[in-house]
């Protein structure tokens, strides 16, 4: 078994892919170097406080097989661009990308749009504790969704990325999403298991960049089965007068680690960072965020909510970091936990570091149970107490996605949320 593992590992990680452009193979090689140079995180690492650093050592888990199309999915509606990945490999793209839009799997994009792509793929991520893993992901970069919205282009319908996982083993996913000057687009990504039994390990990297004046909204619903685990490493960058929104709903996975590093840089750049988790049973969701204010007059707003059932556990650690000179910063960070059981555990570590003047910042976290007055009100309308609690918890979560201010994305996320409460 271990022999097979080693072979598999040596063949893929960091090695050159035959026929691929040199720059791309160089990225992979660089990834391998960084991976080898980096240390695994330990419990002493501040970014892993209360967490499970050992869980991040997933590199020895066998790679999941490349599978064919394994599920019947309804065809994408007219005018919708949809990627479907199975175990990280692109199986299909539906819909036609309009002029000015690139929507390609990575393993085609490297041949068809190489020059742009080379400069569009950012440096290796993982500033929030998973640097070694981010390097590993880079060393194995092979497929993914490359979405580039050209300057001035407006996409009416969200682009869909469907990630399906089947069989045991490790899969990698990658999304590069960029919006050129004044472009406007939205993306909805989903992570699903094809059955309740297979234990998948998903390593997902997300790079978002909004250029000057762009408006980019990204939402993700993660509903893997509860045998699976996932590490998501994300970065978003909002440029001058742009608006970058990233939202996620986690309902699946036994253990999920989610790191998101958001930068606002350039006058009046703004970003919204939204998350909801509904952990049940012994599910554990570990989320780390960083709001980096790199220049003056920027805005960032983070709202994370968790509704915890049973013996579930959440960890939220977030930092607002205001660079020297990033005056007139407007930054908010809120984590709210709704404790639906006495045995669940929510850990919150909000943080703030300000190195500028004239700054309006707030951060805070709360943990509470459903209020008796709300339950009484719903009961007084004939709704049984248990149902009342569900409705209130669902509303508590749903409220976050109203902030998307995007009807289609909101609807898609709310549907998954509603299913998780049904």
């Amino acid at each position, binding site marked *: 078994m271990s022999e097979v593992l080693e072979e598999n590992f040596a063949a893929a990680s960091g090695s050159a892919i035959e026929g691929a452009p040199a720059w791309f193979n160089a990225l992979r090689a660089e990834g391998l170097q960084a991976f080898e140079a980096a240390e695994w995180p330990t419990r002493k690492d501040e970014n892993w406080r209360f967490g499970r650093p050992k869980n991040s050592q997933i590199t020895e888990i066998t790679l999941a097989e490349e599978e064919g199309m394994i599920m019947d999915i309804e065809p994408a509606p007219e005018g919708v661009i949809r990627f479907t990945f199975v175990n990280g490999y692109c199986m299909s793209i539906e819909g036609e990308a309009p002029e000015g839009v690139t929507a390609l799997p990575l393993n085609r994009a490297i041949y068809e749009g190489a020059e742009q792509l080379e400069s569009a793929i950012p440096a290796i991520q993982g500033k929030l504790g998973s640097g070694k893993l981010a390097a590993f992901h880079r060393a194995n970069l092979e497929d993914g969704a490359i979405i580039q919205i050209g300057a001035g282009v407006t996409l009416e319908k969200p682009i869909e990325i469907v990630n399906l996982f089947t069989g045991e083993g490790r899969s990698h996913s990658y999304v590069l999403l960029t919006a050129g000057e004044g472009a406007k687009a939205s993306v909805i990504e989903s992570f699903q298991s094809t059955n309740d039994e297979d234990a998948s390990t998903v390593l997902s990297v997300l790079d978002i960049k909004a250029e000057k004046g762009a408006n980019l909204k990204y939402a993700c619903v993660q509903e893997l089965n509860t045998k699976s685990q996932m590490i998501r490493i994300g970065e978003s960058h909002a440029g001058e007068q742009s608006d970058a929104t990233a939202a996620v709903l986690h309902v699946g996975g036994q253990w999920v680690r989610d790191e998101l590093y958001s930068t606002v840089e350039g006058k009046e750049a703004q970003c919204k960072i939204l998350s909801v988790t509904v952990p049940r049973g012994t599910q554990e969701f570990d989320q780390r965020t960083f709001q980096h204010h790199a220049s003056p007059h920027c805005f960032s707003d983070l709202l994370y909510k968790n509704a915890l059932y049973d013996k579930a556990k959440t960890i939220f650690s977030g930092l607002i970091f205001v660079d020297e000179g990033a005056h007139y910063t407007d930054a908010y960070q809120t984590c709210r936990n709704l404790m639906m059981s006495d045995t669940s555990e929510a850990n919150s570590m909000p943080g703030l570091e300000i190195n500028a003047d004239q700054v309006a910042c707030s951060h805070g976290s709360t943990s509470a149970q459903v209020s008796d007055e709300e339950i009484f009100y*719903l009961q007084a*309308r004939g709704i049984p107490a248990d149902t009342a609690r569900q409705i209130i918890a669902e509303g508590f979560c749903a409220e976050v996605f109203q902030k998307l201010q995007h009807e289609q994305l909101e609807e898609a996320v709310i549907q998954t949320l509603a299913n998780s409460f049904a």
Partner: protein
Amino acid sequence: MSLIVNNLQASIEETSILKGLNLEVPKGEIHAIMGPNGSGKSTLSKVIAGHDDYEVTGGSVTLDGVDLLDMEVDERSRAGLFLAFQYPAEVPGVSNANFIRAALQARLPKGEEIDAVAYYKSLYEKMDILEMDRQFTARSVNEGFSGGEKKRNEILQMMMLDPTFCILDETDSGLDIDALKIVSKGVNSMRSPDRGFLVITHYQRLLDYIEPDVVHVMADGQIVKSGGKELALELEESGYEFLKEEPAHA
């Protein structure tokens, strides 16, 4: 339905609030309860609805012969009781339309679903009577509502749930005269020989629009005086001074 309250005693954290209250509201009638602050008016409404802050220490409350005090709060509602709250709770993230729908759904047998088309038709009809903008359906329950909007929303729920006995707890508080008229219009549209109303209010003004059959005066946890609607006018003129001359009888 007829509501009969017999020798009702209730307390909160050991403090006795209702001290043997008797009241009978036959179906088809509207009764008003007035009384000074602290007389226990709102406590009465919450005890009848089943709020668990209050401990019932004696007496009974029946709705058409059915004992309410043994029921859960939601069972009382499904049995036909409706309480329009003085301070309705806010329920963030839950749209008004979904909230009312869930309340109606709770009245259906398992497996049966509300007909969405009929539901919205009925909802819009009632909203029109209450002059409520359509966008109320999508807004979160009571969140960011003005005082008047909250009260209208209470009446909307009352109209949708079609209860057999309604308690209005200071529904007029915080309403301007126009809103008061609209709310009253909604209530009056529900007057029926099969439905009873208990209207709790501080001010006679409301009773100009919702005309009561009987007015009760409550003081120190009991009904101390009952009379026709002219009693409300008397109270408006001379206040509750008379209570000091005629102490509440045991």
